């Protein structure tokens, strides 16, 4: 699946679950510590809590995706952009990522207990020596894309609400295009597989699931 940032200002908050058993889901710490990274880009994979790989990032023209900052919520959106309701704004009311993903999770029988860490694609947050987090505006550009190759049957839950640390005072979620096509399993020399010995073992664990 390709996520394309149409105008260069998008954020896509993504949650991942094993479609065949949603108690298995994306695990932020396991993803970061297996690959010794605090951000995601081409060559990285997204681990589940069961030591398997839900998806691999096979291409990326943006360069940095944020796995740390999570979802905007009703309080944050009201504080930043103001309070809106359907009664006054109809379908232009301001949405927040937390309730948006709960809405989608609910359609699959999932809820707050299933809500774990999310990935914010197209957003960049770095951490300085003191641990302070810094949001980088203009991380992406018009037409930037990231390709996810799914190594398992995956339930993808996403929202295009703005990043919770986006300093813009304007409510303006960026447009995102989703494109999906069939692909083949990762070959032996796949860059995501060979990135580190951890990923080799992660792919092996994943292959065992489908044997």
């Amino acid at each position, binding site marked *: 699946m390709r996520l394309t940032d149409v105008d260069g200002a998008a954020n896509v908050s993504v949650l991942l679950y094993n479609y065949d058993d949603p*108690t298995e889901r994306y*695990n*932020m*710490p*396991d993803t*970061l*510590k*297996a690959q*010794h*990274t*605090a*951000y995601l880009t081409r060559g990285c994979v997204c*681990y589940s*809590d*069961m*030591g*398997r790989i839900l998806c691999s990032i096979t291409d990326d023209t943006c360069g*940095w995706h944020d796995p*740390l*900052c*999570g*979802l905007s*919520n009703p*309080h*944050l959106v009201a504080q930043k952009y103001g309070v809106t309701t359907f009664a006054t704004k109809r379908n232009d009311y301001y949405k927040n990522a*937390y309730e948006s993903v709960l809405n989608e999770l609910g359609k699959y029988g999932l*809820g*707050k*207990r*299933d*809500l*774990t*860490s*999310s990935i914010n694609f197209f957003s960049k947050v*770095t*951490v*300085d*020596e*003191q*641990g*302070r*987090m810094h949001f980088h505006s203009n991380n992406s550009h018009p037409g930037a894309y990231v390709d996810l190759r799914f190594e398992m049957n995956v339930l993808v839950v996403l929202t295009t609400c703005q990043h*919770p*640390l986006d300093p813009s005072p304007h409510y303006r979620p960026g447009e995102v295009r989703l494109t999906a096509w069939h692909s083949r399993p990762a070959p032996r020399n796949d860059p995501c597989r060979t990135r580190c010995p*951890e990923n080799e*073992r*992660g792919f*092996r*664990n994943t292959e065992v699931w489908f044997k």
Partner: protein
Amino acid sequence: MTVSLAESSLDPARATFREVVGAGEPWMGSIKQGQHFRIVDLAGNQAVDTLFYRAGTLEERYSAQDTIRAQGNIYLSTGSQLLSNEGNTMLTIVADTCGRHDTLGGACSAESNSVRYALEKRYMHSCRDNFLIALARWGAKYGTGFSKRDLASNINFFMNVPVTPEGTLTFADGISSAGRYVEMRAEMDITVLISNCPQLNNPCNAYNPTPIELLIWD
């Protein structure tokens, strides 16, 4: 980095609860709103994997991402407010003689050990096994249906996982030592789930898991 150390004035002799949790063991318990909860690293460099839930519900729990985003810092120390997925403050760290605590390293599990170290390491005891054993032993006292679904990303007290500006993340030697502690005040009634980490494959426990002590004051 700069660390801010703050001692507590509370006297351990006046604590209403004191218990030593052995190396590699789980623990589950309650803290009431207003009580102070202290974790002591008795022998030094011991990671304490910890989860918090609002008492009486499984739908509100500690959220690593909300906590670090709201305070704008990935490390926890004195003054840190531990937030829930609903954005409520669950506990506030009021004293800390270690200096910083990890929010990103999560818990070890049989499955992640097989990825991180070797497929043959799957058998080794892990924090997630501890969490699940604790839920099997005591979970029903604290809520109906506690399960793996409820194991979100935990705090690792006393553990050192530095992140660089370039985005690398490593498990480093600890900055804690014998007798250091972290103390927090509960801002709501809390269920606590702890794994005193049994990990032997990385420096988070100095390759030698050791006991901790838990104290509660009214």
